[in-house]
């Protein structure tokens, strides 16, 4: 009963908010005949957490990389904050990018820099006017958000996989993004660490009121974080709904994710 109420609340929340990311008819082919995206359409509303599920190679990561301009699609339209990012000049695209955080699968920490330097480097590039004390405060706050203030002077090579992802998240959060794109945030982690990362995603959403797209294979993560789930199959959206709806889907292929 309580779950049903939660679902209704989630649905109504999603419907009442305005779209912040809109993707229309997105196509991408690698090489001659590797058609990865074959017309993806999706909308993410403000404050919503959208989880994209799908088998490896179904085009999940390509979709979110297209949103931030890391991959150029062959055809389609991507609107973020009502701006078509595919046609923006580099400087305007960078303004949009600052508002979008991207957590890479590996964390993608800069190996030659310590944890502190990783965060300071990113912050300094955008907020040159900040004093050293202000930078230090922001860095500590970001690390505190992910529960890793103690690791401030460590090098990335000294961190575990889970810690690297948390620091990667802290580096993303330091720019205070409105949207966060998570590329398989729990892949390669043990069950407990995966749950901690999923809870962290939820915590960030509540504290910072961010909008998120989460690419994952981890159903526990999807269940905990998703307001809505989209299932991608061979480059097209196969199904869409809440966790509970898709769990009872008539499509056996979709249901197989939840078993």
């Amino acid at each position, binding site marked *: 009963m309580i779950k049903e109420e939660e679902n209704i609340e989630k649905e109504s929340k999603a419907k009442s908010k305005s779209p912040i990311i809109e993707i229309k008819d997105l196509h991408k082919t690698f090489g001659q005949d590797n058609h990865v995206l074959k017309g993806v359409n999706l909308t993410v509303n403000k404050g919503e957490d959208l989880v994209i599920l799908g088998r490896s190679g179904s085009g999940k990561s390509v979709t979110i990389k297209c949103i931030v*301009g890391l991959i150029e699609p062959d055809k389609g339209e991507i609107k973020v904050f009502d701006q078509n990012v595919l046609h923006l000049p580099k400087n305007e695209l960078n303004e949009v*990018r600052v508002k979008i955080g*991207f957590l890479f699968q*590996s964390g993608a920490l*800069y190996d030659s820099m310590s944890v502190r330097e990783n965060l300071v480097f990113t912050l300094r*590039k*955008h907020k040159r006017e900040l004093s050293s004390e202000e930078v230090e405060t922001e860095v500590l706050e970001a690390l505190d958000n992910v529960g890793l203030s103690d690791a401030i002077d460590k090098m990335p090579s000294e961190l575990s996989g889970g810690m690297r992802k948390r620091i*990667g998240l802290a580096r993303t959060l330091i720019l205070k993004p409105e949207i966060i794109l998570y590329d398989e945030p729990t892949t390669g982690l043990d069950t407990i660490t995966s749950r901690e990362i999923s809870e962290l995603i939820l915590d960030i959403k509540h504290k910072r009121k961010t909008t998120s797209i989460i690419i994952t294979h981890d159903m526990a993560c999807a269940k905990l974080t998703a307001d809505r789930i989209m299932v991608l199959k061979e480059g097209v959206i196969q199904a869409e709904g809440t966790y509970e709806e898709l769990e009872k889907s008539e499509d056996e292929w979709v249901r197989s994710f939840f078993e």
Partner: protein
Amino acid sequence: MILNLKNTFEDIGNATLFAKQFFKEVFVPPYETKEFLKQCYFIGYKSLPLVAITGFIMGLVLTLQSRPTLVKFGAESWLPGMVALSLIREIAPVITALICAGKISSGIGAELGSMKVTEQIDAMEVSAINPYNYLVVTRILACTLMVPILVFFADAVGIIGGYIGINIHGDVNFYRYLTQILQSLEFLDLFPATIKTFFFGFFIGMIGCYKGFNASNGTESVGKAANSAVVTASLTIFIIDMVAVQITDLFF
């Protein structure tokens, strides 16, 4: 065969566009002064021992190998001038550049290749930080500036090596040795040799960065990028040297 040729031309085209972007970005702020100085330290200062040892051996060996022939013609007194000219005009610039291709170009190729494969370059891009400006411009500039300095250093150490080589079989005072060198050298011996070292430095940095920046996904490609950077940079050094010698012949 045709496919290989096509790939080579495609690669040359892409490398040209990559170099063109350098000239577009080098004057555009923000200027990454701190990173540039850091790269100068790694490329210049950290290469000094290697260049010193090689320079010394070049001078010493060249003297020991040339001496018997000059003695046969009774021209032993020409030895300091000949060693210095050979070192300054050709041997020191080319050998130092080849050493830099092996050490610096491969290092840059591997470093950037590894950053590319582990998505660190993408992470910069999505954080609205220009990775080309931060990683490529600084490294190419540092190479362009540091390689000529390393060549000067190799010249100096090579001349000292030559002095020791001469003194193994004879007894020449260092002041006299230097005087003989300065008497046989002209400004035009130094000028073209120095100019070409800037080109060597530019291409060593540019090729290393290009190979690293274009490493495909997968750890294997990091090794390939480093290897390919050394081979291409070494070959380019010889081509530039050949062109530089032809131009020098025409004008000087």
